[in-house]
């Protein structure tokens, strides 16, 4: 039982770290307030699910309706999920990132997140509507004893997390990352020295979409389930809280934020007995606390627990 709890915790931690690293690239480094981040995770999850599930005519699956059902072998569904996240970023970025002022971008993405959820909930034949997809096959489950499968999945998640972290650190420290920061700090100045802000934003939006899609694939393979109720727009706000608490623009901060907010916070509040007050009081208060965390940090410590390092040129005159 305890090892089950630990496995659960580690896998969620991995998925949250991956998501926070991606959001940090978009929000922390490039300054894009992607309020529809969870939609990219959801697209990855749905894609991974329908690529790995058998067709909806299969005997055990006939209670749900969905497109696809290709039964492709593992890594392909996860890779497909990542690609789907990246592909979705292209049209969304095309509409949102080209002409709009940055606060309009934020509200457009927020509205997209609400609407995408409404559409998927109401259009049942596409991805089984509000009930969602169940019995998503766990990757390579037949190769392992069910007792040890959890450890294998932790390993798989850890490898993906490490790969994503490597990519994120390389991007932040590359000339491209430097250009993104320049654009975030002063878009007009970056444009004046010949950088194309739309191309820069589009690239990081797609990269973030790919990583978000991968995180969705990992999550749905583990919980073997995906439905509109798990990707409501407030889920994105938790990730924003994590990045703001951890430290915008700092990869280590994003990792720390992922461990503190979605993982730590959920675990701590798990120990509050849910019998206090009317039903739904404790979950509602958790959301209130997330809001307070964001406002509190933006007021008292906007740079987060681990602030972005100030990058100074060593040879600069005083």
């Amino acid at each position, binding site marked *: 039982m305890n090892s089950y709890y630990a496995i659960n915790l580690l896998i969620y931690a991995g998925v949250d770290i991956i998501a926070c690293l991606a959001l940090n690239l978009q929000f922390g480094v490039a300054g894009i307030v992607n309020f529809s981040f969870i939609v990219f995770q959801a697209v990855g999850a749905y894609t991974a699910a329908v690529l790995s599930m058998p067709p909806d005519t299969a005997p055990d699956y006939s209670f749900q309706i969905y497109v696809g059902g290709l039964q492709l072998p593992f890594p392909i569904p996860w890779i497909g999920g990542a690609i789907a996240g990246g592909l979705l970023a292209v049209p969304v970025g095309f509409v949102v990132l080209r*002409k709009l002022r940055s606060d*309009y971008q934020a509200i457009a993405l927020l509205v997209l997140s609400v609407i995408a959820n409404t559409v998927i909930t109401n259009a049942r034949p596409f991805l089984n509507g509000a009930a969602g997809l169940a019995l998503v096959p766990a990757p390579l489950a037949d190769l392992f004893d069910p007792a040890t499968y959890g450890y294998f999945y932790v390993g798989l998640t850890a490898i993906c997390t490490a790969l994503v972290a490597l990519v994120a650190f390389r991007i932040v420290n590359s000339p491209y990352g430097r250009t993104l920061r320049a654009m975030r700090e002063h878009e007009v100045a970056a444009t004046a020295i010949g950088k194309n802000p739309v191309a820069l934003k589009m690239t990081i939006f797609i990269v973030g979409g790919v990583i978000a899609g991968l995180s969705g694939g990992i999550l749905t393979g583990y919980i073997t389930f995906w439905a509109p109720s798990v990707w409501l727009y407030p889920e994105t706000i938790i990730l924003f809280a994590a990045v703001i608490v951890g430290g915008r623009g700092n990869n280590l901060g994003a990792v720390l934020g992922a461990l503190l907010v979605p993982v730590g916070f959920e675990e701590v509040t798990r120990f509050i007995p849910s019998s206090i007050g009317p039903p739904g009081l404790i979950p509602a208060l958790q959301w209130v606390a997330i809001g307070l965390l964001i406002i509190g940090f933006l007021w008292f410590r906007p740079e987060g627990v681990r602030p972005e390092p100030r990058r100074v040129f060593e040879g600069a005159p005083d």
Partner: protein
Amino acid sequence: MSLFVAAFGFGLVSMSVIAIAAVGFTMQFGITNMINLAYGEVMISSAYVAYYLNKAGISIWIGMVVGALFGAAFSFLLNRIVYAPFQRKGTSYLGMVIVSLAISLMMANLLLPIVGYYSVSYQEGTGGLIRLGAIILTTNQILIIGIAVVVMLLIHGLLKYTRLGKAMRATSANPTLARNCGIPTQRVVDAVWLITGALCGLAGVVAALNSDSFAIANGAAFLITILAAAVLGGAGQPYGAMIGAVLIGLITELSAAAWSPEYKEVVAFGVLVLVMVLRPQGLLAKRGAMAAAG
């Protein structure tokens, strides 16, 4: 065909509701530079204030006035306690959007344990039916249209013919210059939050009265329609928001008749996307969405 004429009638009601809400939202943005994402939640809170009064046996029309007063007081305090301090601190537009979204999330979840998940509705007769050709509306709906027309005329009068309205327009155009000319911009901003808050509260009660029932989850749906109307008209432009409300009200009701009422917000979103691609500055504004953010 008569289906569409009937839908046109509903469109008149819905544009009235949207207009009251969208004018308030867009004035907040235009004059105080605040995209207040908690607007939908303030609307729904006011609707609940009126609901509890109504449940205690008080007429919904009095509840509507109290709801508007609640919206005004709440918005004023929200600005004074949260938004204004953050703006004084120099938080960027983006930071303010995140703050208002956090406020919206907190409000929805503070309300939830109090009012519950379930839909409620006002105890108020719908009044008699009034027929104008194929358009059939209830007396309440006619009254809603009347309220909206009066409110729009009042806003027009306020902006064009009063000193306060002039000061608001000056503050909207250039706050620093307005202050240097001796306009007490702080008091103007306070007045804006009181007035737009009253519009927000009124819109919440009117919207709840117009729909058969309402629940806490309606806040987000309200917000999407309002955003679509405000952006379509050109954000920050009260007259633009009126035009936006007329168009969004008609388009959503006609699409509901032609297609499915479940997709009303999706249609509003479709309009929003089209505007953002084709004319991001909106119908009326010269700069609007394309102006550089600070």
